[in-house]
């Protein structure tokens, strides 16, 4: 009997590769999988498609350290071997960071992921600008209802550098809205500017699912 494998993997998309759209990313990952001679399962039907599912698209231009994908493979394959062989076919700016064999059935990534975290780095001129920006976002901004948590962390060496860690909702419910990154970024740049601060960097840091009221990464639950 042929043994099947399901693997969940996490990949990054940084530097120039953040400029690829979701469809462009999917095409390149699929081609890399073919080159790596990974025996991927195909869907049945008129136009068979490889069974590879991706997490929700990240906006073009936003670097990410945490894109996820599930793949169905027609043979027994260790996740670590999968990672090593596919990374030979990818550039380090878009490559697999971690992979795990899926043993017990898990819900699809698209349906399961409820939060994404983002990191913003700003340079401030005046003391307390960070707190002011933080407060404006969670009290008066239209984004307040789409933010699960927001933390302010001062850089240990340079006190003019402030990091904001934001966790936003990716799913709509009665109690919250969906966090829209591009809209938020526009507002955040405007807000920072009004507080003599400059947005220096930002990226998507992680994606989370909910298990027993706790935030877990999609790889922690497999």
């Amino acid at each position: 009997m042929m043994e099947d494998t399901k693997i969940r993997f996490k990949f990054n998309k940084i530097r120039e590769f953040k400029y690829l759209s979701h469809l462009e990313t999917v095409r390149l990952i699929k081609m890399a999988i073919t080159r790596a001679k990974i025996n991927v399962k195909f869907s049945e039907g008129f136009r068979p498609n490889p069974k590879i599912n991706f997490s929700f698209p990240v906006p073009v231009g936003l670097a990410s350290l945490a894109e996820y994908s599930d793949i169905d493979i027609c043979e027994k394959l260790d996740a670590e071997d999968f990672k090593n062989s596919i990374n030979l076919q990818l550039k380090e700016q878009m490559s697999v960071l971690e992979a795990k064999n899926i043993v017990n059935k898990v819900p699809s990534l698209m349906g399961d992921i409820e939060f994404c975290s983002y990191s913003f780095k700003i340079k401030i001129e005046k003391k307390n600008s960070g707190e002011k920006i933080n407060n404006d976002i969670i009290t008066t901004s239209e984004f307040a209802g789409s933010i699960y948590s927001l933390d302010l962390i001062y850089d240990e060496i340079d006190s003019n550098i402030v990091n904001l860690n934001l966790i936003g909702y990716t799913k709509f419910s009665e109690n919250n809205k969906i966090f829209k990154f591009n809209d938020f970024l526009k507002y955040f740049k405007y807000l920072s500017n009004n507080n003599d601060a400059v947005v220096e960097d930002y990226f998507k840091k992680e994606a989370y699912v909910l298990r027993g009221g706790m935030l877990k990464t999609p790889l922690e639950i497999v």
Partner: protein
Amino acid sequence: MKTLNFSDFEKLLEGVLKPGRYIGNEFGIKSKSIENIKDLDSKVFFALAFPDVYEVGMSNLGIQILYETINNHDDFSAERVFSPWIDLEANLRKNSTRLFSLENKIFLDEFDIIGFSLQHEMQYTNVLNMLDLAGLNLRFRDRLNMRKPIVCAGGPAAINPLPMAPFMDFFVIGDGEEVVIKILEVLKQFKLENRRKEWFLSKINKFDGVYVPSDYKFYYYDNGTVKKIEPDLKVKKATVKDLDNYRIVTSPVIANIKPVHDRFVCEIMRGCFRGCRFCQAGFTYRPVRTRKAENLISDCMEGIDNSGFDEISFLSLSSADYKELGFLIKSFLDLNKNKKISVSLPSLRLDSFTLSIAEMIQSGRKTGLTFAPEAGTQIMRDIINKNIDENEMLECISIAFEKGWEKVKLYFMIGLPFENEKDIEGITEIVQKITALARNVLPKSKLGRLNINLSINAFCPKPFTPFQWAPQDSIEILEGKFARIRNNLPKRFVKVSWSDPKKSRIECVLARGNIKVADAVEEAFKNGAKFDNWSEFFNYKTWVDAFDKAKIDINFFTGREAGIDEIMPWDFIDIPVTKEILIKEHKKAKSIALKNDGRH
């Protein structure tokens, strides 16, 4: 070497629709990394420039061949640059940033040499736009005091180089893969020994395929025709003798965003036996050279493995004439049984024999069959030497319907030499015959899915063909002929598309232009012409105004029948089909026309 840094690169991409076009770092890139080169002067840097967007250029086989050939050499490094789309162009101009290469983001004017690949005439203005975006003077005479970059062009639309000649230091006419290395060897010496540009050009103009515009002078009669070309020396087209000495590209660069042809390409044959009298490629790519199927099978397997494509295209001008086609495709499919790989044959001439090949490659989903009768009557097809028999074609379509095909694509040309009413009517008659056939053969349940795509193109007489002397129909006549076809077509099942005759007219004047036409190309560019092959950009008025301003009569090049004994501007290029052969073929066409219903 000056390069664009990453933060400036990011600023340029703000608001750009498809930034993936410009990021580079694809899987399979082969250019040298400039950080690792100790002595930059010991290497020659070549910018392979393609005057259209990334998705189009990355589908071009010539670019992939030259990229691999040059980069396989230790002393040479080739990087790619494509036309920026209008959004990036606006950002480049706004920020006064020069155009840059994809790999190392080297500014274009920093390269030792820029080589443009000219695929068709409607790309000429994009070439000038790229030179302008590189901050370079357009005309070679205005770049004489600069040692670099040297600017050259090649490719199928360089076969008559004259309308682009004032902009180029030199051209490569014909196959590039062999001569490019010889040229770069000389360029390396030019760089190391700090030689003059004239020295470089006088060395390379001895090579087959190299045309240096400053070597030639043209003299004209008062009526505008050529009186004399000096010196009386021909530029012989560069020809690769044995294609088997040049492997197909087995590790192509994988485009980061989906190219227009997203597939592995295997060139099985160069040149064509057929000799259709309207077809420029049929004459200029001679002699016919083939690759051995045996070698191709293993190279294709390697290529598919290296690239990860799920489609392969066997490329040639007429794949049905490739003797080992059946063997090649069957062997390839057998070896790839367990993979999901589809095969495409873009130039398969269909008859009862090749239909079995079409069946082999479309075994699952039958996508459609393409026929190119090109003309509506047998006489007209004889005149143009398109050897397709109507009954055979209809029989083939009938078998195809029986085997389950429901989609047929048909290519025709109008405005052909010696054409008359019957030829125009003949086109609609063929379509009517096919729909009648479908009603007979296809069961009622399937008839509804019948789909006949009719593509009508205006004939554009081209240099180096037996019709190079022929006048092109005026826009009004072409529109009238097309209207007649459209009005008489069956309404059901048939979709018709047609090329803009205004564009064909500009294509014609550029294809048959002399060196003066370059003034109009420059005017058109200055008036905003670019991406002329994109219907949303092509502006006929811009071109008409440009020709007016340059005081050039378009009709002299398009609507006039040239004398057989006239010196053609491109006569100094040896393709090497002789002018005598073209004249002989021209006379044959004429005598067929005269023998039949007294065509003029």
